[in-house]
Each structure stands twice: as structure tokens, then as C-alpha cells.
């Protein structure tokens, strides 16, 4: 390319004056990179215009530099502090709320689980207590019976089965000093439905009602307390309608024993 003709075409002046479209500008810039003489020519034009403008320089009003510095300072300082602080606080608040919510949910679930566990434990403890209580009652009554049986004043009489129930047997323990009587029902069959055993004391050959015996007899504690009859000469058990009878049904006598 004829660089002299290119320079003389006036395109470089147009370039410096900002008269070219972007595509033409890029072309000139490419030429300047490639050819040092073009680059120098552009610089000369720029220098000339710069001097022309400097020749008409006008001192700006006083305070302009300070105003510029103030505006430049305010670009970074207040924006950084006033704008980011509330944003930081809201972000922190939001994070805290989320954490709080998660915490609440966690503790609620945990609370539900623990109170369920507590319910289970409480009911199991209740059961244990009931069990314990009944055990203690058993132990207490056994201890009482033990003391009663080991008392030298306690005497006993064995009631043996009649023809109605040859295998039945029961023992009456009585203590005249303590005025207490027990009957041991360890070897009598369960009464038929609708029937109940009734104990009688034989005083002077006549039966005296001593009450009905329990419908169900515990295997562990077959000893049942009965009223004390000081003048009894013997004891008998009859099978009566449930609830007992005023007079014994002699045909239904199950056991009898005489002192």
C-alpha cells in the first residue's frame, strides 16, 4: 500500500476527529499497528489538536477540584457502608430465623419422641409398682400366716373327703389366744358352675355358718382366713348354691374333720 497516499487521503485526520464509523476506525488502528509511520502521523495530529485545545485552556472555577475529589471519595465510601450494612443485617436475621425454625422443629420432634418414651416408661413403672405392691402384699400375708402357723398356740384339724369327693382335703388352723382361724384349701377341686363351698363349725353337734369359701383359690396362697369359733368341736364343708345357704345341705357335704 502507498502509505504516503494513505496519509494524504485525510483519513487519519478524520480518525482523530472521531469522524469515522467503528469499522473504519478499526481499519485505521490495524494500519497503525502495522506501520510505524502511520502511528507517528496519528500521534502528530493528536498532538496538534491537543496543543490547539490547550491554547484555549480556561481555568475552571475555584472549588472544582475539591468537588471532584469529594464526588470520587463518595463513590466508594458511603455506598460500601450504608448499603452493605442493612443487607448484612437482613442476611444475618434471615439466617438466624432459619436456624431458629430448624431448631424448633428438631426440638419439637425430640420432645414428641421423649414424651412417648416417658409414657412407655411411666406405664411400665406403674406396672412394676402394681406388681411390687401385690408381691409385698403376698409377702406380708405369707409372713403373717408363717407367724400364725409357727405360734405354739396354733392347732390344726384336717378335714377329709367324704364319699362325694374322696380326694378332697383341707386343714383348719385355729389359735385360741389370737382368736384367729385359717383354712388351707390346697386340695379341693374347683366347684361346679353355680355352686360354692361353704364352711361350717360344729358346735355341740350343730352346724354354725362360717361363711362361703372363695370361688377361685390361688395356687400360691391357698390359706384363707375364716371366722374364729372358740367352741367348735369340728369343721365341715358343703357344696351349696352360689352365695351359700342358711342351713347346710348334708347330702352335699364334701369334707369333715373333728378336733
Amino acid at each position, binding site marked *: 500500500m502507498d502509505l504516503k497516499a494513505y496519509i494524504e487521503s485525510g483519513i487519519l*485526520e478524520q480518525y482523530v476527529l472521531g469522524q469515522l464509523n467503528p469499522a473504519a476506525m478499526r481499519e485505521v*488502528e490495524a494500519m497503525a499497528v502495522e506501520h510505524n509511520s502511520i502511528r507517528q502521523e496519528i500521534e502528530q495530529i*493528536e498532538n496538534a*489538536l*491537543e496543543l490547539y485545545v*490547550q*491554547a484555549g485552556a480556561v481555568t475552571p472555577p475555584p472549588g472544582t477540584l475539591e*468537588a*471532584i475529589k469529594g464526588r470520587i471519595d463518595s*463513590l466508594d465510601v458511603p455506598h460500601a457502608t450504608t448499603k452493605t450494612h442493612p443487607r448484612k443485617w437482613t442476611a444475618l436475621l434471615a439466617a438466624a430465623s432459619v436456624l431458629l425454625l430448624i431448631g424448633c422443629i428438631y426440638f419439637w420432634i425430640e420432645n414428641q419422641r421423649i414424651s412417648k418414651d416417658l409414657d412407655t416408661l411411666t406405664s411400665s413403672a406403674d406396672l412394676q409398682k402394681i406388681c411390687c405392691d401385690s408381691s409385698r402384699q403376698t409377702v406380708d400375708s405369707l409372713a403373717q400366716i408363717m407367724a400364725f402357723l409357727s405360734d405354739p398356740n396354733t392347732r390344726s384339724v384336717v378335714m377329709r373327703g367324704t364319699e362325694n369327693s374322696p380326694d378332697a382335703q383341707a386343714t383348719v388352723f385355729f389359735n385360741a389366744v389370737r382368736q384367729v382361724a385359717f383354712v388351707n384349701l390346697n386340695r379341693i377341686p374347683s366347684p361346679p358352675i353355680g355352686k360354692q363351698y361353704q364352711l361350717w363349725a360344729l358346735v355341740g353337734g350343730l352346724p354354725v355358718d362360717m361363711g362361703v369359701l372363695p370361688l377361685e383359690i390361688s395356687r400360691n396362697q391357698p390359706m384363707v382366713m375364716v371366722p374364729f369359733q372358740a367352741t367348735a368341736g369340728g369343721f365341715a364343708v358343703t357344696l351349696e348354691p352360689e352365695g351359700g345357704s342358711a342351713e347346710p345341705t348334708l347330702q352335699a357335704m364334701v369334707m369333715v374333720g373333728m378336733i
Partner: protein
Amino acid sequence: MTLVAQDPHLISRLRSRDKSVIDEVYRLYSGALYNVILKLIPDQDLGAEVLQDAFVKIWQNGDRFDPDKGRLFTWMARIARNSAIDTMRSGAFQHDQKTDSLPDYVDDHGAFRQTDADRDPGLTKVVGLLDSNHRSIIELLYFQQYTQSEAAEKLNLPLGTVKTRTRNALSTLRQLLASERLIVILIPLLFTLMHLTRGS
């Protein structure tokens, strides 16, 4: 005031946003940039505000200036001119200079009414030697940002003449400035020579 040499240190400070550079850029270029702005916005107070805008933009965009693509002043003058044009378009300022008659100073031979004490008197004198036709072209194209076609219409000249005159105006300016620079170099040299001859 003569041409400010392209100072690589100044440019690197501007590019790295070193605030100490503001004073220096202001000292070197505020007068010339204010000149650029006042050509479009003759109101000095409004012009000073636009100058502030321009400096803030120069500061904000300092890292974008590419020294390989031209001189720092060319880049800053473009920012100043664009800031002025933005203000003119904002509505606060009614721009009618392009459609109405040419501003007075274009034809005014004593074009530099807004003279300044800081200005290099030699430089002013040299620029004053420029033909008024040449000055009109520079004023329209450089300061007023007319296209060459618009300038042709304004000056009632064929486009070709405007193109030739653009190049001639800048060539003449360069020659005048080169001779002025020569005088600047020659005068101290002559003084030194005279001093030497007198001394011997």
C-alpha cells in the same frame, strides 16, 4: 503550557486508581477539558458541573484507557465532550447550536475570548496565526462534533473542499506548532551563545 508528554507513570496510576493522580491530571488537563466543554456549553457554571462529571467518569474508567490506541488527552477530551453532549440532551439544556447559526467565536478572529492567565502566550499566538477558515473547520469538527457533511452544509462548501480543508487545517497547525517549538528551542540557544561569546 506546551504539550504534555505521554507519561507512563501517570497513566499507570490512573489505571490502578491511585487517588494521588487526580491532582496531577487536574493540573495538566482541567483547563483544556473545560475549554472542550465550554465550546458546547457556554454557561460557565453548568460547564464546571459537566467538568466534574467528566473527571468522575475519567476516574471510573481509568482502567479502560489503552495507551496503544492513542493519547491520554484524546481519550479524556472524548469523555468531556460526551459528558457535555449528555447534559445538552438531558433537557436541562436546550441544544440549538447545531441547527442555528454558527457560534460567534467561529468567525471571531479573536477567538479566544475565554482567555486564561495560565495559558502559554506563545502557543496562543501561534494558534492565533491559524487562518479563520481553518479554525472554523477545527471548531466544527473537533469541538462541535459535526460530521464533514454537516460542516459542508453549514459552511456552504462542497464536501470535497471540507475534506481537503480538514487536512490542510491540521497540517498548517502542525507546521505552526513545529516552528513555535523551534523558536522555543532556538531562543535559549541564542542567549547561551551570546553569553558565551560575550564571556570569551
